[in-house]
């Protein structure tokens, strides 16, 4: 294996960039929930970093990228279990970076994927049950799907499905899993009649900005080198995001009368999602059209939840599932060998690629939805997945974490307790 220091330096930096996306997502989502739930939301995202980091180095990296089990392209073996043999490149990869760095880079994708789910089920999950859910979900959903699509020995990869940085593995996967969890735990109290507006829009923009910034590591880093492909992915990422931002606020301007700040943030994220699978396969024409399509279609799609009566609180389905599907399918038209991969329909490649893209989309969406639904149902029936009515009224911050996000009262209105606690009603105003 030939190590390239430039490639290694860029992937080290990219790995850190992708990690930063999860705290960015926490702020993006945290600003969108009500003030009484912001810590509960941020905690779910922050704890996902810790939980999935450990699960990944011990188990799921091996299942996702270990030598294929039986040659079916379904799941990896335990070859890399507990970081054993971690300096060997995964079969099928010719790496110019240390294999352990490849492991760390992929870990950041495994972290943000379950974190994305939290938006759909916002304001109503039990904290411990959430940890149990993402631990098992990483093993039974993320690892096999990553193996099918990302690993060169995965069955969808071998068929020719293209996913440069995780349109199917990350966004479609998380999008449908979020819908499944929201379906199992039910709607927030009062939804959709009761108004639940975002409590801090500047925080949403800060989060969206961090996502945009970190996404360069996500997409350009997926070239696994500091090279022309990474540079093309970088430019495509920024172009599609810019186009989607403008398309979303233009759609709002026409439909609702005013372009909104939340719409600009949402449009940018929709563009980032849609270009993710495509950024290493399309040119700037494709990137611009994918961005425009994502901005318009995701802006319209986020309203479907009202027709479906499904409380996908922060539109994980509308943005990540729909955006991911758009990006994955449009590769079938705009993919070009001049950038990477094979030619799509508009570059004389016929409709073969589109067929493989559609198959990957359907397989991943159906598998993730079904298994996520079963897992969420199992948790609901055993340890419970949803907080009590009283906790929901009081808010997750106080009822689950004994904290409030914003303390503005000059007197605080409290006194410190030394020694044994007097009240038995801990952290709960009953």
């Amino acid at each position: 294996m030939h190590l390239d220091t430039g490639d290694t330096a860029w992937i080290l930096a990219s790995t850190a960039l992708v990690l930063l996306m999860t705290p960015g997502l926490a702020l993006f989502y945290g600003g969108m929930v009500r003030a009484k739930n912001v810590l509960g939301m941020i905690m779910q995202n922050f704890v996902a970093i810790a939980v999935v980091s450990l699960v990944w180095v011990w188990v799921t990296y091996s299942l996702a990228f270990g030598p294929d089990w039986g040659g079916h392209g379904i799941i990896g073996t335990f070859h890399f279990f507990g970081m054993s043999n971690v300096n060997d490149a995964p079969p099928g990869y010719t790496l110019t970076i240390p294999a352990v760095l490849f492991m760390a880079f992929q870990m950041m994708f495994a972290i943000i994927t379950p974190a994305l789910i939290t938006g759909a089920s916002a304001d109503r999950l039990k904290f411990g049950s959430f940890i149990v859910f993402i631990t098992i979900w990483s093993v039974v959903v993320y690892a096999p799907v990553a193996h099918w699509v990302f690993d060169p020995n995965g069955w969808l990869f071998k068929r020719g499905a293209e996913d440069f940085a995780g349109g199917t593995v990350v966004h479609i996967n998380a999008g449908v899993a979020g819908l499944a969890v929201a379906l199992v735990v039910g709607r927030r109290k009062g939804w959709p009649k009761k108004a639940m507006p975002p409590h801090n829009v500047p925080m949403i923009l800060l989060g969206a900005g961090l996502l945009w910034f970190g996404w360069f590591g996500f997409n350009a880093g997926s070239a696994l080198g500091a090279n022309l492909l990474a540079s093309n992915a970088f430019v495509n990422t920024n172009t599609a995001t810019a186009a989607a931002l403008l398309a979303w606020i233009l759609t709002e301007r026409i439909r609702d009368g005013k372009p909104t700040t939340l719409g600009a943030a949402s449009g940018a994220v929709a563009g980032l999602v849609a270009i993710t699978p495509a950024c290493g396969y399309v040119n700037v024409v494709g990137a611009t059209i994918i961005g425009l399509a994502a901005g318009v279609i995701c802006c319209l799609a986020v309203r479907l939840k009202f027709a479906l009566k499904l409380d996908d609180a922060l539109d994980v389905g509308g943005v990540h599932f729909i955006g991911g599907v758009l990006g994955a399918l449009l590769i079938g038209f705009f993919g070009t060998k001049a950038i990477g991969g094979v030619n799509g329909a508009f570059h004389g490649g016929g409709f073969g690629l589109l067929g493989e893209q559609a198959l990957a989309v359907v397989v991943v969406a159906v598998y993730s939805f079904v298994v996520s639904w079963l897992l969420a149902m199992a948790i609901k029936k055993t340890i419970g997945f949803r907080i009590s009515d009283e906790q929901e009224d009081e808010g997750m911050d106080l009822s689950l974490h004994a904290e409030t996000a914003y303390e503005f009262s000059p007197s605080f209105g409290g006194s410190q307790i030394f020694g044994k606690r007097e009240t038995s009603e801990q952290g709960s105003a009953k």
Partner: protein
Amino acid sequence: MKLIVAVIKPFKLDEVKDALTEAGIHGLTVSEVQGFGRQKGHTEVYRGAEYQVDFIPKVRIEVVVDDDRVADATETIADTARTGKIGDGKIWVIPVEEAVRIRTGERGSDAL
């Protein structure tokens, strides 16, 4: 005319507003307040330091009505805001000497 002041649980505000509107009482003033009655506060913990917070967030509703609507209005608020658990809040009624609608200068009941 009477001023009805009600201190209720924050999450009940929407229901109370809708119930009052349905009862034909239009317009009210709302403020976010903190206080305590019989309900105990809650505990917050920061790096292991525990704080007993005695003042609980509540919503204070103020609405001015004609004398003959007082019973109806207080009943509506009480029925809607009640959960049966400690901390549901209180309602009190105060006589009002005068009311003026600023835009038109109307006075008394006409200003309500």
